[in-house]
């Protein structure tokens, strides 16, 4: 029984989340409608996608100690390549996914080999530079492929019927949940494996790892490619969940920074921190906008009402406060409270 202990919590969590689309439960304030409605399910699916994508960022930042400012590039790669292949080149879904997977490995491999030659802030800036290059490329709209500023609509014919249409939102929910679960499993497995222990050692002190005779570079590259590949997958899932198509917003530095905020708020390097951060950030970002219109907020004096109506203001402030007072993020807060109680 003890061998199964570590699995109890995640499995239970997964089970609970899996049955959500079947529950006709109404949670006011948090959601605009009962859990089994398409609107709420769509929102939850989005939260789950970002929970997963935040975790991919945490693999880089929290676990390996690599501060990247260009993670959006790989997410955008998944989004744009899939959209272009399905819509512009009219490929089938199978072929598209295969090619996206291949590109999703090769690109971070090449860029990672270049970027990882430097560390620290220099690494952060190089990753930023590459992501910016991607952003510019998308804006330039070569051959009208990317749709530039306006983005690119998705061709629904190529997508399996199970994922199209409002009534099938629950399938999209389960797809998003599957994605988050897979990312969680892979990251967990990586962390607990021997390469994972090396990654942790690298984060603490790369020099010492060299002294032992291992080459930090190989392990960093592994983490980089894995994290980027999973982010690309996240891009594809996101595309399905939203259903609208590619938009240049996903190529921006702000997008990567949002991931950073998610990870820090949740707690970098902790087991559930990034998932929690990604989920809550997305929820807050989506819901605070509608809450702002609610009567309670409107009654506040405009000095308070104006900033509070902007979700990013609240999230940014929370982020700053957490960095200051609770570096472990919300997950760290939990750990601290437990320590206080015992």
């Amino acid at each position, binding site marked *: 029984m003890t061998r199964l202990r570590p699995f109890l919590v995640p499995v239970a969590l997964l089970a609970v989340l899996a049955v959500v689309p079947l529950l006709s439960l109404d949670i006011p304030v948090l959601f605009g409608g009962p859990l089994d409605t398409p609107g709420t399910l769509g929102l939850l699916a989005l939260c789950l996608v970002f929970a997963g994508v935040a975790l991919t960022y945490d693999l880089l930042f929290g676990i390996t100690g690599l501060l990247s400012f260009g993670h959006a590039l790989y997410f955008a790669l998944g989004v744009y390549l899939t959209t272009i292949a399905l819509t512009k080149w009219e490929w089938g879904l199978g072929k598209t996914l295969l090619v996206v997977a291949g590109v999703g490995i090769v690109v971070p491999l090449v860029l990672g080999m270049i970027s990882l*030659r430097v560390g*620290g*802030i220099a690494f952060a800036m190089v990753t930023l*530079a590459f992501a910016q290059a991607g952003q510019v490329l998308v804006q*330039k709209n070569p051959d009208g492929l990317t749709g530039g500023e306006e983005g690119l609509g998705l061709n629904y014919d190529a997508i399996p019927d199970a994922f199209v249409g409002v009534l099938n939102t629950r399938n999209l929910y389960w797809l998003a949940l599957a994605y988050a679960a897979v990312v969680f499993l892979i990251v967990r497995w990586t962390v607990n494996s021997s390469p994972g222990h090396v990654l942790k050692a690298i984060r603490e002190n790369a020099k010492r790892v060299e002294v032992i005779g291992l080459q930090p570079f190989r392990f960093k590259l592994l983490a980089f490619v894995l994290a980027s590949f999973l982010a690309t997958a996240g891009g594809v899932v996101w595309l399905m969940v939203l259903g609208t198509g590619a938009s240049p917003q996903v190529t921006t*530095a702000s997008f990567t920074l949002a991931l950073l905020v998610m990870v820090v708020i949740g707690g970098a390097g902790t087991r559930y921190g990034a998932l929690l951060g990604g989920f809550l950030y997305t929820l807050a970002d989506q819901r605070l906008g509608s809450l702002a219109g609610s009567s309670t907020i409107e009654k506040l004096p405009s000095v308070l009402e*104006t*900033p509070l109506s902007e979700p990013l203001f609240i999230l940014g402030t929370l*982020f*700053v406060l957490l960095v200051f007072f609770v570096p472990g993020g919300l997950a760290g807060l939990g750990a601290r409270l437990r320590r206080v109680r015992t």
Partner: protein
Amino acid sequence: MSTFVLLTITGLGLGAMYFLIASGLSLIYGLMGVLNFAHGALLTVGAYAAWWMSTKIDGSAGVKLLAGALFGIAVGALVAALIELVLIRPLYRRPVEQVLVTVGLALVLNALVEAIWGFDARAFPVPTWMIDTTSVLGASIPNDRFVEIATAALVLGGLTAFLRWTRYGLIIRAGVENRAMVTALGIDVRRAFTLVFAIGGAAAALAGVLSGVYFGVVDPSRGTSLLIFAFIVVVIGGFGSIGGTAVSAVVVGLIQQYANYYASSGLGDLAVVLLLAIVLLLKPEGLSPKVAH
């Protein structure tokens, strides 16, 4: 030929803005080792403060602009000093948290501006004589370019003089080289930190005002988009060096203009961004302080 002249002067005008925002960034990182991601937000705050003041003043566009600019610069300096005192100083020995705090701050400030004035661009007061053009070597140059170049030149001169002739300038120059030794001489570097942040904030605000003149409008995304170029300029020109920043700003502005026109639109931005990657890969120590702090 006339196109070339227009491109060159426009490139210099852009370079002027890049210099203004990069100079603060350069000093802040050089002296304090803090990569201030909120610098773009300081630009935005300064630009909007200037715009707001200009709407409160009655008078010609020139008067509005001047009043707005002065107010914007003051706000930029004040906000920057406050940020340093309240948020950066307490995190003195935690560099990762310092960077994260500036990231969060950028989010908060931008969100605040968007919340108060919305996403739409606001028209900036530009006197007609700045919109008019002057003929230089056959090219019609909008006069605002000259204003930008002149302003940046003045600031460059002022900063250089400040660094060369004043005691705080001396402290900053020494501190950029070796912060610990400065404290070992009995000097409280922290005051220099606040001063440098304030200078950076003022310069960024001024860049915001100039960008309002150049583009004719202010919008919330301005700071972030210019910040990327500021990073590029600082990395290429070397942290802590005002002269290096100036040269690098001119180079970046010109490359951007020439490449965008002679190669293809958008390629200039790409070229500049890749230049950043190349410089970083060839010279990663460019980002580390010269002497360990």
